[in-house]
């Protein structure tokens, strides 16, 4: 490579990164700036908006509901999916393709389309069973299904499920012991991956909750913004930081086994590609 071309390339890279860096960091910086503004011009920075979060009971209820939904959804999907995937590997290999296609199907259906089908179901459930906001976790489990499936599939592919469970069975273990004391400890990082993805997705979810008229965190952020934009942006920053911590944890967990950078990069990539659309 000639020297002039190398210099040109270097200049091109710096200009691109500075411009796009400003585009991407600007709005995040602006949220911090906005949420620490005082009243009136030239007033000093305050944390009033952050402190005021607790004075909005609906907002607090939304935060609590979203956290509960995140926990219920991630545990629920693991409880349904892990035994099914192990069982299919052991006894029903013919079903494996079918289970895989079913699990990845929600990726191709936009959330705004799914909610059209959910709407009459939740109306019926609200009248005949329960109108508790936590029933949303049944719908959310469908949203997180593809991500959980991929994470678990990668974990199960790394161990020899058949040999492990046959060894445990021949030593007299029941199916519950096989699952709980043999399979689960061996795929712990995959379980954590699936769980973190589910939590991140549920905390950011707006489309389904808003259209089924359930006030979760994101719905409350929008409604508080009508009266006090500073508070709702403070909550937005907080939830963004939380999601960021989850993602860092995720790339850390993902990097442990493979250890190499490529593995981690690929994990981040599939995550983002799959994730796109999930919270939008």
């Amino acid at each position, binding site marked *: 490579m000639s020297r002039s071309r190398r210099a040109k390339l270097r200049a091109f*890279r710096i200009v*691109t*990164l500075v411009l*796009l860096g400003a585009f*991407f960091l*600007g*709005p995040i910086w*602006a*949220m911090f*700036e*906005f949420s620490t503004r005082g009243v009136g011009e030239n007033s000093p920075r305050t944390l009033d908006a952050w402190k005021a979060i607790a004075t909005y009971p609906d907002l607090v209820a939304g935060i609590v509901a979203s956290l509960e939904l995140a926990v219920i959804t991630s545990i629920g999907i693991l409880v*349904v999916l892990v*035994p*099914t995937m192990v*069982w*299919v590997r052991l*006894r*029903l290999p013919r*079903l494996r393709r079918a289970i895989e296609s079913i699990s990845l*199907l*929600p990726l191709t*259906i*936009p*959330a*705004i*389309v799914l909610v*059209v*089908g*959910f*709407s*009459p*179901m939740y109306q019926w459930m609200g009248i005949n069973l329960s109108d508790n906001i936590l029933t949303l976790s049944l*719908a959310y489990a*469908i949203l997180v*299904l593809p991500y959980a499936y991929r994470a678990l599939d990668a974990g199960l592919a790394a161990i020899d499920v058949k040999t492990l469970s046959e060894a445990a069975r021949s030593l007299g273990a029941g199916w519950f012991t096989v699952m709980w004391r043999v399979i689960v400890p061996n795929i712990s990082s995959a379980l954590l991956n699936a769980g973190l993805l589910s939590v991140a997705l549920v905390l*950011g979810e*707006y*489309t389904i909750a*808003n259209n089924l*008229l359930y006030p979760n965190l*994101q719905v409350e952020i929008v409604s508080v913004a009508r009266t006090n*934009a500073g508070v*709702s*942006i403070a909550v*937005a920053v907080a*939830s*963004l930081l939380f*999601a960021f911590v989850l*993602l860092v944890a995720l790339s850390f967990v993902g990097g442990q086994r493979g250890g190499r*950078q490529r593995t981690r990069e690929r994990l*981040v*990539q599939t*995550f*983002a*590609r799959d*994730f*796109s*659309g999930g*919270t*939008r």
Partner: protein
Amino acid sequence: MMGGRRLSLDWIGAVPFLGYVALFLFLPTAIIVAGAFASEGGPTLVNFANLSRPYIVSAVINSVILSAVTAVGGAVLGAILTYAIATGNPRGTFRRMVTSACGVLAQFGGVILAFAFIAAIGPASAVYVYFSQHHLDYYASGVWLYDLRGLELVYLYFQIPLMVLIFLPAVDGIKPQWREATESLGGGTWTYWRYVAGPLLAPAFLGSTLLLFANSLSAYATAAALINQGGPILPLQISNAITSEVGLHEPGFAKAQAVVLIVIVAIVSVLYAVLQRRTARWLQ
């Protein structure tokens, strides 16, 4: 009993999962498809006929334009950023930082993204106050941020990182030796891009653009948080039809719109898969 084997009860293990997806994945899908073709009287096409209402037609057109603009814009800017990353040290911390940031940013969407832009360049932002004090009122002809033009800008925020993530593997597949070969045969930079790298990257670029198109087409939350009134794009119209009075009187209307949206997304996805296969032929 298959192939004369004894009747097996193994399939019972799959029942909880299959039961759940039947209720919460297949049933809603069936409700949409059946509902789109049904009315109180029986099977009908009237729901689809209603799609010719001017506000639905314009919502579909707006959606397609918005998606096309942000897909092409995101693809071009994303490709530039991808090239800037790919020409750096493949094992460097810089590359790792940017790809990780893209992973985070590509999923950063919805309500929070809308608020980030309102805080950054909205009418109450420090940037706007500064500019209007210096006689550069960029909202002189209306606050375009809360409009389709605002969406075009905001969507780029997740489209560009997504482009980087899906296009980087293809750009990584380009070997420096090919450039050297071009040069040793007397070709310059233009020849290299026009006859070597360009044609090789074209299918991957087009495929990525299509994915970005589908991504933007199905986005709802960002638009809902940014645009308070009316429904200039299809996802917002679907939401209106679900929640408003119209939905109660015309329960099939939202479903017919949903069918339209999913048909467009399906066509785009199939095209993407075809291009992806073409890319995979030489990549690796």
